[in-house]
């Protein structure tokens, strides 16, 4: 059982700071996923945990022991690399046994551990093959096997599926999920930029941007209650639609907002939040929109279809809305037929509308009651 703490972790290359005061507590046996766009520092943090990068300041603590200056191999950590990093001149067996041989483990013990890992990962038949004679998925399993045999306290995965094709990625993702189930006490930290991997594998997701943590939470929390505009648009596919709005009227319990393009919505607003004239942003996920025939009511959007993407069970409509050059995306039923230049009306349930203040932070307001009163549904 291994707890891992990151306390005020900073990483800088000269004057360029890559990680800013990272604080994170990882509980024993947790599956944590780091997500974020390229260059956000997630891999750097993973490599700092592994010991492949030095930590400029702050503390990395594993099971109560400060690990900043402990050699990577002594931290009780195994890492699976994006490129697999298998030794091409060694067989699968030798690849998996390499670390144990270096550590001076007895041959019988090495045999036992490698064979057990090979059995778990269904690599028994390939132990005498070289990596070049294996498929991408098999190579990835060898890389995982090499990590398993060392009986690590913490597993680190650095974008392990990004070199696999779509079908294999799904299959390997499921294998990793099963692997985690079979090792409930092992803490796993997984870096990816693929939010599907993050949502499906993680107990908790850590969203990074520009070397800072934007939000930590379960996949459902991040999806339903994104802390800010960045998380709102990063989690979910297609990304959440964002529209600028201005508070035009303020009563004691509600705020009336005018969106760019002329749509009016009314929100429940606690006292002290949303003052008259304040610019805000409204977020609506494409899958939370409802297409309907009526027009002219408050909270109803009208747009013209510019592009239809058929994905089989659903279709993505790219709409031009008045007052904005950004496309507004709607996820619609795959059975219905839509045409380019078609005009449609849609709305969203009040609880599915996210409100962000002028700084882009979620104002935690949905205004369910007021929406009903406003006659949207």
């Amino acid at each position, binding site marked *: 059982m291994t707890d891992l703490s990151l306390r005020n972790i900073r990483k800088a290359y000269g004057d360029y700071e890559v990680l800013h005061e990272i604080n994170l507590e990882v509980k024993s046996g947790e599956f944590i996923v780091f997500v974020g766009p390229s260059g956000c520092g997630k891999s750097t943090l993973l490599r700092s945990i592994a010991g492949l990068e030095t930590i400029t300041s702050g503390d990395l603590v594993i099971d109560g022991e400060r690990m900043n200056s402990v050699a990577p*191999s*002594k931290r009780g950590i195994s890492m699976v690399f994006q*490129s697999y*990093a298998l030794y091409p001149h060694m067989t699968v067996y030798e690849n998996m046994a390499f670390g144990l041989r*270096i550590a001076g483990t007895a041959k019988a013990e090495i045999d036992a551990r490698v064979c057990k890992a090979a059995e778990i990962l269904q690599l028994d038949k390939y132990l005498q093959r070289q990596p070049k004679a294996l498929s991408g998925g098999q190579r990835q399993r060898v890389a995982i096997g090499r990590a398993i045999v*060392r009986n690590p306290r913490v597993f680190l995965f650095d974008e392990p599926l990004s070199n696999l094709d779509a079908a294999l990625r799904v299959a390997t993702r499921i294998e990793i999920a099963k692997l985690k189930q079979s090792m409930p006490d092992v803490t796993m930290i997984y870096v990816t930029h693929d939010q599907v991997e993050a949502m499906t594998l993680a107990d908790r997701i850590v969203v990074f941007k520009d070397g800072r943590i934007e939000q930590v939470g379960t996949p459902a929390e991040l999806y339903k209650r994104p802390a800010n505009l960045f998380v709102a648009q990063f989690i979910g596919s297609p990304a959440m639609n964002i529209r600028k709005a201005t508070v035009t009227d303020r009563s004691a319990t509600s705020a009336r907002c005018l969106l760019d393009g002329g749509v009016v919505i009314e929100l429940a607003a606690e006292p002290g939040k949303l003052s008259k004239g304040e610019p805000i942003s409204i977020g609506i996920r494409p899958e939370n929109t409802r297409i309907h025939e009526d027009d002219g009511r408050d909270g109803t959007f009208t747009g013209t279809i510019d592009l239809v993407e058929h994905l089989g069970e659903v279709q993505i409509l790219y709409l031009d809305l008045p007052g904005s050059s950004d496309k507004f995306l709607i996820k619609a039923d795959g059975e219905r037929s839509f045409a380019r230049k078609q005009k449609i009306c849609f709305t969203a349930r009040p609880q599915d509308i996210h409100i962000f203040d002028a700084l882009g932070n979620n104002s935690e307001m949905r205004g369910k009651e007021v929406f009903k009163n406003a006659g949207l549904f």
Partner: protein
Amino acid sequence: MSIAYQSSETERTDFAAVLAKVCLVAFLTSLGIVVLYPLLWMALNGFKTNAEMFGNPFALPSGFSIANYISAWNQGIRNYIATSVIVTLGSAICTVLVSAWTAYGLTRSKLPGKPFFVGIVLGGLMLSPTVAVIPLVRMMQDLGLYNTYWALIILYTAFRIPFTTFLIRAYMLGLPRDLDEAAIMDGASEGQIFWKVTLPLCKPILVSCVILHVLFAWNEYLFAMIFTSGADLQTLPVGLTSIMAKHGTNYAVVFAAMTLSALPIVMTFFAAQRFFIRGLAEGIGK
């Protein structure tokens, strides 16, 4: 009309392609002949008598007698080959190992001012052996290494390290760092990473470097002539000049001796040609 025009265009293009191919094959064949014929001519003349050779130098030998080869072998070639093998292999091993370690340090260490050290090592490429001869003779005499195998082994190693390091460094720059990091995670030390991971992966360029070094050391004349004086320590190039001096008029034996001296190196090259080309091709441009 348009179709007819297109068809004649296509024919013209096909003809140009065929012509270009024929020219290329003819050129390469000529080049092959230019390179191989003198060697073949030398080997064939080793089977002739002296009279036969002067009578009709370009004809095939009347019989394939190996008497000249046996004579050359017994008149010192055996010793010269043995010395050359010792000096060449000894210096090749030293050069490649030292250069590989140097290249590993220059590519993998986080040494401050690394470009400066790269410049120092590679700057050795510009050092002319000729200008260093006199101080080197004094140095070898002082060290008691003059007229020993070690004199040549050390000198060949020293003068080939810059170029060999240059080649191995270029190759190592192309090796993925992930492998080093995986080995670090596995608990390997720098030495273990070098011996067990990096060096085996450098096999193609190491073979190339060994071949290039063998070509150099096998044919090197200046140092071999200056730093060895006894017949038992002379390498092939110096030994061949001795044979020519001794059998100046018996060209058939001289040709046989030359053929015998060239044979090991030609065989080495053909045996390792695949690695040689791959190693150089993969290391180029970094």
